[in-house]
């Protein structure tokens, strides 16, 4: 059963500084892009114990700090090796300037 979880107020967030969250078993991170927010799984499919949110953000792409696999922040799609799988993408809504993620 999925639920909406509060992430942060959009104004408090900074572009290029993802917010890592743990919801139960799920590790994810929320990214600010202009006046939007996006949430994707945070564990790199290539080497599971590495957080994408520790990596380098360039516009709408996040690069894993370990081996530089890139992922589209909006969709979670993997963009190049060595990772070969996408990360999950979670629905996001913004209500009264606050970002919520559905997990």
């Amino acid at each position, binding site marked *: 059963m999925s639920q909406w979880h509060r992430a942060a107020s959009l104004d408090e967030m900074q572009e290029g500084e993802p917010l890592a969250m743990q919801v139960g078993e799920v590790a994810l991170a929320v990214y600010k892009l202009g006046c939007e927010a996006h949430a994707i799984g945070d564990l790199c499919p290539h080497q599971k114990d590495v957080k994408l949110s520790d990596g380098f953000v360039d516009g709408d792409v996040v690069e894993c700090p370990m081996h*530089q*696999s890139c992922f589209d922040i909006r969709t979670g799609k993997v963009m190049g090796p060595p990772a070969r799988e996408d990360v999950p993408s979670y629905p996001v809504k913004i209500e009264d300037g606050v970002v919520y993620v559905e997990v």
Partner: protein
Amino acid sequence: MNTTVSEAPVSTWQARRWPQEREARIPAWIYSDPLLFQREMEVFHHGPTWNFVGLECEVPAAGAYKRSWVGTKSVLMVRDEEGGIQVLENRCAHRGAPICWENKGVVKDFTCPYHHWNYDLCGNLQGLPFLRGAMGKGGMPRDFRKDQHGLRRLRVATRRGLVWATFGDATPDLESYMGEEILALLDRTLGSGRLRLLGYNRQLLPCNWKLYLENSRDPYHATLLHSFFLTFGLLRTDTAFRAVPTLGGRHAIMASTYSAATAGTQNEVTKQLASLKTDFVLQDMDVVKPVDEFGDSSMINFSVLPSVFFQQHGNSLAIRHIIPKSESSTELSWTHYGFAEDDPAMHERRIKQANLMGPAGYVAVDDSEVLAQMQPVAESAPDSVQVVEMGGRDVAAQETMVTEALIRGFYAYYREKMGL
């Protein structure tokens, strides 16, 4: 006279000279000099030569790999995603650790255990931890380019299911390196190229690699060292035999014709030569009864420089990979194979006949034992000289087993390439 560090002496082997009667003598120091060994690796193994690496059927799926050796360098034979074969040096571009510590497996990419540098199946550097630093500190310089720091790739040639590789940039093509006669034999012994892997043996020989190579080019010892041959009639003095050095002694062929009808019995001369009691019997005589699978009544064994011997012993087919470790240690790695087309009877026959081969084989055990005994003697007397005049003093092909022409041929080639 004082010598300081800056006056380091010339490497010992460069000050040595081959004995006067060059063609028919071998100096024992070539089996024990460590710097000579290094030079041999450069000239024969890591240089412009084609080296056996493995069989294509050992790496069937994309990402499948097998570790092997070219000279003293560890390499990985890998099936890439396009279905091609890569041979990569197993040495991280970062600090030189071996990136792969397993003998075989199936992977999506390679990650070095030390700093986790990650390479794709073709050896390209895909990623390295903290390229951009951690928490704003460290990281590689901005101008660091991954495409300049991949694994060293060897040039690869595959033919009839076998994989060969070379480190040399100037190595001629495989066909030229083998020459016509060896190429024809490779095609004969590999048949359709649809090889079926039967199994492996591995052994560590406490001797110089050239002692094994000589042994594999020495038909003279066959009826003398290997009592099993005589007792069970596998080698008879009435078989036709040709000893042929090729390409100036680079490779060597030993071809005999036999009769499947008489195999397993002794003629009178063989009985006289047998040094074991003739009341020895085998429980399973299939072990010494081959089938003429190539249809030419021939048993042809050949040695391809620098590191591989193609065995046809009855129906036991194997590739013996000579892997030098040091001047006094050599790994001998056997790959036993058959063909996809083999029926169950042939498969069984090959497995049984393989009991003559390998580290504990009824025949092959003699070679490793005698060479293990020889090495310390060679080391104790480096200035002593071996005499190889059986069959004469030249290097022409001969139609007899009682010749050392193939050994003389090898050393003629060796001296030329080593500048000795």
